[in-house]
């Protein structure tokens, strides 16, 4: 008996799954969201952020010290990969005009006293002014100028009159007793895309799932005569078969999309891809399930198919930030940290960054995987109750409206 029941359950689930696929592919709006977004968007983003770094930031140099020392410094600044001297001008006013016309993004000013100060053994200051409209400008400008000055400083110290007749090594040692050597861990290029793209890819999976599932549910709601989520006239005996059948439909589709987005795309755009397929799956599975059930749970709130697009799509950008990928979670307001825990993307983004960019093992991101399973379970239960409620409501209406034709 039980065996037949299980067989029946599997048949039902498969039927629901295939039926759901039919719904998905017939609906052009959903196809656009599911597939175009997941497939084409990452490629578009990949090309937008193709250049890891912003090199050769155009700057103007105001060199008021006619000396070989200042010219050396200017050469060093120009030689850095970050900066490119586009204009050499005589006054700050000219430089400012160039800046206002957006011809340069920064200005370096070398005062008149530059050479005489160095010759007299006095400390001299040079000034840099940098465009703050993009973090990339500041970072590049700062590194470039710092590096050039550091290099120049070393040269000056080496060339200083050697009154104590020290050896080269000794001079070096007194001028720089300790050398700090920095090593960037993970994300070897340190570039912006390597950092942004993985997070965006993970988020796209969740958002498109929620949107697509929402649209399908909204359509079902609209088309159904009683405006109920599940036509109770269908013959399925158990709600969980419906829930699992639908979930399976989306899961299978998204396993392929997920691998495409999280393995293939990083590979072709040369983003960090430290995770192998086999390591990714145990993480991808709970993430997708959590997103699917989250989408199904939310879908009870949409009573037409446009609502998810209007309302949920706008949450994409806030969700990206709430995950703590750009601003460390520890510094996010505790209230929003809590809100973030309701969304699979929060754990998904961090987990994937650790797996993929940092090369963490599955055990190391264990807590996040557990959190995703908990979310999946929580939203599954929520969905079950919501569907149940819907069915009960429509059964009641059906029984009330059932025409009892007599005679």
């Amino acid at each position: 008996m039980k065996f037949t029941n299980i067989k029946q359950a599997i048949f039902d689930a498969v039927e629901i799954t295939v039926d759901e696929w039919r719904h998905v592919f017939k609906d052009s709006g959903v196809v656009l969201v599911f597939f175009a977004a997941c497939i084409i968007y990452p490629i578009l983003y990949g090309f937008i952020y193709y250049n890891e770094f912003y090199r050769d930031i155009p700057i103007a140099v105001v060199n008021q010290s006619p000396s070989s020392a200042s010219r050396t410094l200017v050469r060093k600044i120009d030689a850095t990969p970050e900066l490119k001297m586009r204009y050499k001008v005589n006054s700050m006013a000219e430089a400012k005009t160039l800046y206002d016309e957006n011809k340069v993004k920064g200005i370096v000013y070398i005062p008149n006293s530059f050479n005489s100060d160095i010759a007299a053994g006095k400390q001299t200051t040079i000034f840099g002014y940098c465009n703050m409209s993009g973090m990339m400008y500041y970072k590049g400008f700062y590194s470039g100028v710092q590096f050039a000055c550091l290099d120049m400083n070393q040269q000056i110290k080496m060339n200083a009159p050697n009154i104590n007749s020290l050896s080269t090594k000794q001079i070096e040692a007194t001028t720089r007793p300790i050398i700090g050597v920095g090593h960037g861990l993970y994300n070897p290029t340190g570039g912006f895309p390597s950092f942004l793209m993985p997070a965006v890819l993970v988020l796209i999976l969740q958002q498109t799932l929620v949107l697509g599932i929402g649209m399908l549910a909204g359509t079902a709601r609209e088309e159904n005569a009683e405006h109920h989520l599940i036509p109770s006239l269908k013959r399925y005996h158990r709600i969980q078969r419906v829930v699992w059948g639908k979930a399976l439909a989306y899961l299978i589709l998204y396993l392929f999309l997920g691998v495409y987005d999280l393995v293939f795309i990083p590979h072709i755009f040369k983003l960090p891809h430290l995770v192998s397929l086999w390591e990714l799956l145990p993480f991808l599975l709970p993430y997708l399930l959590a997103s699917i059930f989250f989408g199904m749970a939310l879908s009870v709130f949409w009573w037409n198919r446009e609502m998810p697009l209007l309302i949920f799509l706008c949450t994409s950008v806030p969700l990206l930030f709430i995950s703590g990928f750009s601003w460390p979670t520890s510094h996010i307001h505790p209230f929003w940290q809590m809100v973030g825990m309701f969304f699979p993307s929060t754990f998904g983004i961090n987990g994937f960054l650790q797996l993929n960019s940092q090369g963490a093992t599955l055990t190391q991101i264990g807590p996040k995987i557990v959190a995703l399973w908990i979310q999946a379970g929580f939203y599954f239960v929520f969905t079950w109750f919501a569907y149940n409620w819907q069915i009960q409501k429509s059964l009641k209406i059906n029984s009330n409206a059932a025409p009892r034709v007599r005679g």
Partner: protein
Amino acid sequence: MTLGFRLVLKRELKRMVSRPVYALMMVLMPLGFLLFFTTLMPQGLPERLSIGVVDHDQSSLSRKIIRQFDATQQTRIVEQYPDFTKARMDVQKGHIHGFVELPKDLMKDVTNGLQPNIHFYYDQSYLIPGSLTLKNISYMLSTISGGAELQVRQAKGQRTEDAMAQILPISPEIHPIGNPWINYSVYLIQVLLPGLLQLMVLLVTVYTIGIELKKKRSLKWYRSSGQNLFKALIGKLLPYTIGFSIMGIFYNMVLFEWMHYPLNQPIHWMFLNTCLLIVSAQAMAIFLIELFPTLPVALSFTGLYGVLAFSYSGLSFPIDGMPLAMQGLSFLFPLRGYYYIYQSLALNGLPVESILSDYAIQLAYLFMPLLLHKRLKKAIIYMNTPIR
């Protein structure tokens, strides 16, 4: 009531108040986002970033260095690790953003003038904490190095200024133009909030036109305008223009007046900037639904377009740093013009005359709907576009 603009307007207003989704999109959600972004990052820059230290030397010098790291505002030593691997594992766990490894015989080598290297490691997979950690640790180490040198020279009787001149002959002073506190949230909010507003304007505009098509009421709407597409669109969209503009102006008031974000020109120029953004977004939305006169497809596509606008604003990555082919697309996004005007006004404090042409460019978006208006007209009149 006579056919025409006023009838369309009245009809639209009635629709607006009868459906909660408009109040949600025009009032609740924008306010929600404002609250979210202004409270998300309580500090401008993350301070007291957690780092670790691996001390192989255990000398008075190494302990002094550790104390100095802990005493600064920027970093905070949360743990000492016995070796490199344990420290690295904690970086992977997200417990620390980086660590410093003090080598064996550090003190001995410094005293003997052997120039030991202190290696430090910072997590680059999270860009902001990573670069801050890099900056702070290298600054600390060079300060410590300079400090050690200064001490030696002072002990030999050299004056501080002379010593500093020999330690650091050239001192660069870098001034950011316009964002003096290098406040990350100022930098972000200025594009994220208008970007979200623009996204909502796009979606609501497409929705309000598309829903007429879907419910097969578009002919009625068209007729009530006196068979004039121009009047029909203006009458329909005007309440949203006004509503979103009020919200946009409110955003500006909160950010610039209340929270004192940097702004170097009278605020009404920002108001103008915001209103132009809203109107040009509406124009782009009309164009998009002309392209796909089916509500679900138009909405999906508009959503994708609206989110792409964030990347094309030039906020996170400068547009001229993108590959040429991708740069061309940036002209499709009014958010880009908005951000450029904002930078010039607020951060760089340019004279308004120089950016009047940029304002005019924003107006150019208003001509986009002209391209395919016949297509939309046909869809409205014949109402034969598929619902699916």
